[in-house]
């Protein structure tokens, strides 16, 4: 189970990086980065998974006394919650910059932006 999630995450990271490095359209690069970001999140969450345990919420399913033997690791989940929100912020920023670049040059092709190339 955890291996499947990790393999999926790693494949998503590789797919996203491949897309970001080979595409020249800025919008496609942004989509690729989002895919890679999702892969990282899946890997991080799957690290906290433990077989046969349940979500870290104390209710009828998890008696207080047995909490530490019944729940999975809550720390990666808290970390990924943060990572998802920041990832969304980064995606929005990239989209805004892409719009600005399109406004100045009239194209979204990254190879046309050669000012900073040496």
């Amino acid at each position, binding site marked *: 189970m*955890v*291996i499947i999630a*990790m*393999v999926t995450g*790693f494949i998503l*990271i*590789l797919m996203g*990086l*491949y897309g970001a*490095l*080979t595409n020249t359209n800025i919008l496609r690069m942004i989509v690729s980065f989002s895919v890679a970001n999702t892969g990282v999140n899946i890997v991080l969450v799957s690290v906290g*998974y*433990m*077989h046969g345990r349940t*979500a*870290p*919420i*104390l*209710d009828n399913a998890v008696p*207080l006394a047995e*909490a*530490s033997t019944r*729940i999975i*690791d*809550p*720390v990666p*989940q*808290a970390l990924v*919650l*943060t990572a*998802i*929100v*920041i990832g*969304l*912020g*980064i995606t*929005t*920023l990239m*989209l*805004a*910059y892409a*719009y*600005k670049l399109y*406004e100045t040059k009239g194209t979204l092709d990254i190879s046309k932006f050669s000012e900073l190339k040496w």
Partner: protein
Amino acid sequence: MIKRFIVLLFLLALGLIFTQLLVEYIPDSELNLTAHYYAEHTAQDIGASNIVTAIIVTYRGLDTLGEVTVLFLTAAIVGLLLSKGNYKGKSLQRQLPQSGELLTTGSHLLVPLILLLGAYVFINGHLTPGGGFQGGAIIASAILLILLTDPLRKFSHTLIATIEATSGLLFLFIGVLGMIYAGGFLDNRLLPVGELGTLFSAGAIPFIYSLIGLKVGAEFSSMLVNLSETEGS
């Protein structure tokens, strides 16, 4: 061609590293020290059923403040970058097609329900899987639905900014109150911890998370509105 080859080589190396990690990975069978502490002490100290919420709002409250600040900065930068175009007073170049009957009627039905679900998710953040960030994103999805129905609809930037600023300030204010009346900055024991599993438990967590939810919802909405206002220019 050579560029693609280098890319593939790089990805192959990265894939090898990942495989190595995967082969050597041994899942934990016990909670580590930090997680064990959280599992044992959350119920007595914080009183929140959802341990993830307890970590985010109280144990790591300062980090959450930083996260909200990053989001605020993002929203501010997006607003700064995209607002220039509006002042030129450009008129709409192309006529947008009417959105369909299904979308219009559906959004009238769904938007109030989605807003309600968002509020439910952030008010019950300490009891159920959910919280301020998730609830805020749900609220922003209602705004997105409205924008899909009518891309040229104008939202009041003043209202969004007011909600965002007020909830952010109140969040800080509760944090400082925790410093005066309880153990430290953003301490939730400002209010009685209450009985585990009830709505008014976990001290100040429901209030803090509701404020975070409003703030995040307003920030996401302002990003969406700013991006949407580039339409037609």
